[in-house]
C-alpha cells in the first residue's frame, strides 16, 4: 500500500481515538495499532516502552490531580496546593480514557515510523521540505538507539559500564552532541546535492490501486464514526 494512504489511515485512527468519548472504541483502536506495531519485531521496542510509560504515567497521575465524581474508591491525605487526594470511579474512567488516547496516538506514530516507506511519502508530498524534515526527525529514535548502543559498547571495550540512572543519563549529552554533528554533516551533504534549489522534479509514481483508495475511504469513515459515536 502506498504510504500516503497508510498515513491517512493512521492519522484517522489517531484522530478517532482523540474524538471518541467511550473506552471501548479507543481501546479497540489502540489494540489494532499495537498489533500493527508488533509486525516490526524488535525495532518496535523503544516505541512500545515509550508509549507504555507515557500512558501509564497519565493513568496513575491524573486521578490524583482531578476532583470529579462521587464514588470514592480511596481517600488520601490533604496535600498543600493540591488539596484532598482521593480517587473516584469517574476519575479512573477519565484517566483510563486519556491514557488509552495517548497510547493510540503514540502507537499510530510508532506505526508511521516503523512501517511506512518515508521516501515514497516524501515523493508524494507537495510540502516536500516539511515532510523531509519530519521523515528525518522520525529517524531520531532509531538513530539515538543505535548511537547509545555504540557509546555503551565503546565503554564496555574500555572495561567500563554505565551504572544506574545517573550513569545512563551521563550519556545524554554526548548523544545530543553527536546528533548535532551528524545533523550538520547531513545538511552539508544535502546542500551539495542540490537540496533547496528551485525547479525540483520528482520520481513518477504509479496510479492509485483499489486497496489504496479503499484505505483512504476507510480513514474518512473511521473519523466520521468517531464523531457520530
Amino acid at each position: 500500500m502506498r504510504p500516503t494512504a497508510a498515513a491517512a489511515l493512521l492519522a484517522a485512527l489517531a484522530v478517532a481515538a482523540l474524538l471518541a468519548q467511550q473506552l471501548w472504541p479507543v481501546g479497540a483502536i489502540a489494540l489494532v495499532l499495537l498489533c500493527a506495531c508488533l509486525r516490526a519485531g524488535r525495532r518496535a521496542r523503544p516505541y512500545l516502552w515509550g508509549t507504555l510509560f507515557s500512558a501509564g504515567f497519565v493513568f496513575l497521575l491524573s486521578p490524583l490531580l482531578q476532583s470529579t465524581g462521587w464514588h470514592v474508591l480511596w481517600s488520601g491525605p490533604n496535600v498543600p496546593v493540591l488539596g484532598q487526594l482521593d480517587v473516584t470511579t469517574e476519575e479512573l474512567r477519565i484517566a483510563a480514557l486519556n491514557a488509552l488516547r495517548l497510547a493510540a496516538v503514540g502507537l499510530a506514530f510508532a506505526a508511521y515510523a516503523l512501517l511506512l516507506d518515508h521516501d515514497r511519502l516524501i515523493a508524494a508530498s507537495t510540502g516536500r521540505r516539511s515532510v523531509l524534515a519530519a521523515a528525518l526527525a522520525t529517524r531520531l529514535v532509531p538513530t539515538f538507539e543505535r548511537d547509545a548502543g555504540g557509546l555503551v559498547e565503546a565503554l564496555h571495550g574500555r572495561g567500563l559500564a554505565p551504572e544506574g540512572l545517573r550513569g545512563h543519563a551521563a550519556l545524554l549529552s554526548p548523544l545530543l552532541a553527536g546528533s548535532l554533528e551528524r545533523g550538520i554533516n547531513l545538511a552539508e551533504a544535502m546542500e551539495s546535492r542540490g537540496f533547496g534549489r528551485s525547479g525540483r522534479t520528482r520520481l513518477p509514481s504509479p496510479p492509485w490501486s483499489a486497496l489504496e483508495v479503499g484505505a483512504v475511504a476507510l480513514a474518512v469513515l473511521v473519523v466520521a464514526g468517531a464523531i457520530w459515536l
Partner: protein
Amino acid sequence: MALAVVEELTFSYPDAAPALDRVSLEIEPGEVVLVLGPSGSGKSTLVRALAGLVPWFHGGRFSGRVEVAGRDTRRARPAELAGVVATVFQDPEDQIVLAQVEAEVAFGLENVGTPPAAILPRVGRALDAVGAAHLAGRRVVELSGGELQRVCLASALALEPQLLLLDEPTSQLDPDGAEAFLERAVASGAAVVVSEQRPAAALRHAGRVLFLDRGRIVLDAPRDEAVAWLDEHRPSWTSEPSDKLSQGTPGDVVARVGGARFAYGGGPEVLGGASLELRRGEVVALTGPNGSGKTTLAKIAAGLLEAQAGTVERAGRAAFLLQDPGRYLVRETALDEVALGAGAERARRALADVGLAWAERTHPRDLSSGERERLALATVLVIEPDLLVLDEPTRGVDPERKAELAALLRAQAARRATVVVTHDVVFAQEVADREVSLGSEREALAVA
C-alpha cells in the same frame, strides 16, 4: 578552458589559523587529480571550496577566487552548483538522506530538476556503473559500510557531473573494493579530485598529484614526477607492502577462540567456525574483505560479543577500540575522557604516548578526526589491557601518523597481545608479527 580555477585562495575557519593559504590551481576537464597531505593540511577544505561549501556552508574568512564551470562560488550557492559538481564525503552514514537505495540515488536528480521520465533510467545506470544494481530495492539500514560508499558514489555519478569530488571515499573499503571504486569514478569521464590517506590505489589512477602542507600546495606535478618527489621527501606516502612479519617472540596465550560461529539477529551466519589464538608479545593483523567477519571475530575474542557456538578462553583484561572515534567523546576534556578508565596520572601518560599531551584541557569534539582517533586509542591504552583489539585504527590517519602508531604498538607489544583489524595492507605489514586473513568462506586462515 579550465573546468575549475582556484586563484590565491586563503580560507580560515572562525578563530583558527588559515586552513588554506594562497592556494592556486586549475583543473582541466577529465583530469584526475590526487590530493595528498597530512591530517589538517587543508585537503578537505580544498574539496569543500571546489564544491562551494566553503564559504557558503562553513563560515570563516575567505579571500581569493574559486570558479567552477565559469561560476564564481561566492555568487553561486552549493545547491546551484549541484549537477555540475558532485561530492562524496568520507563517512557514508552522514550523507545518506533517504531510507531506500533507489530513492537515495534519485534525490540529487530530483533536486536539480531532471525530467521525471529520465530519473529512473539514470538511477539504474549509476547503480550499474558502481556494481550496485542488485541493491536498488534495498533499505539503506541493511547495507554494509562498503555498500553504502558505493551507493554514495552512485548518487554522485547519477548527476553526471563535470567535476567529481571525493573526500577520502575509500576509508571503509578493502583494497579490492577501493580499487574498483576509484576505477568506476575515473571511468565516469568527469574531472576527478580525490583526497586520500591510502594513496597506493589512487596513485595508479591519478594523472596529477597535489601535496598540501599547512594549507599550502608544496607539490603540484604529474604522477611520475610526484612519485619521485614523494619517494625523496615523504617516503611513507609511497610505501609498498613488504614481508616484514614475525618481529616478536610470542609468550603465554591471552585469548583463544575455537570454532566460533555467529549470526546477527537471525540473519545469515557471519562467522562459520572461525578459530584464533593470541599470545602476549605478538601483534596480529586481522585482514579480509568487507563483510568477512573480521570485526565480529575480534569482538568475540575481546568479549564484546558471545559466540553462538564454539569455545572462547581469555586470560586477563581485554580492551577494544571501535572504528568510530566519536563513540569516545563522553567527557568535557581530553584528560577527563582518558581518566575515565584510570587515574589522571595514567591518563596524562597515555595522552603523551599518543602525542596529545597538549590537548589535556581541550574539548574532545574540538579535536580533528585524526586527533580523535588518537584520543580514542589513549582511552584503551590507559587501562593497560592484556589483550588490545583495534578496529580499523588507521581510518582517516595520514601515513606519517600511521608510522607513529605502528611504532607505539610495537614499543608496547611485549606487554600484551595486540590485534589490529585493518584493510590497510601497508600498515598491517608494518605493525604485525602475524597476519590472519578471513576469506569469503569466513574461516580463519593463518597465512603467516
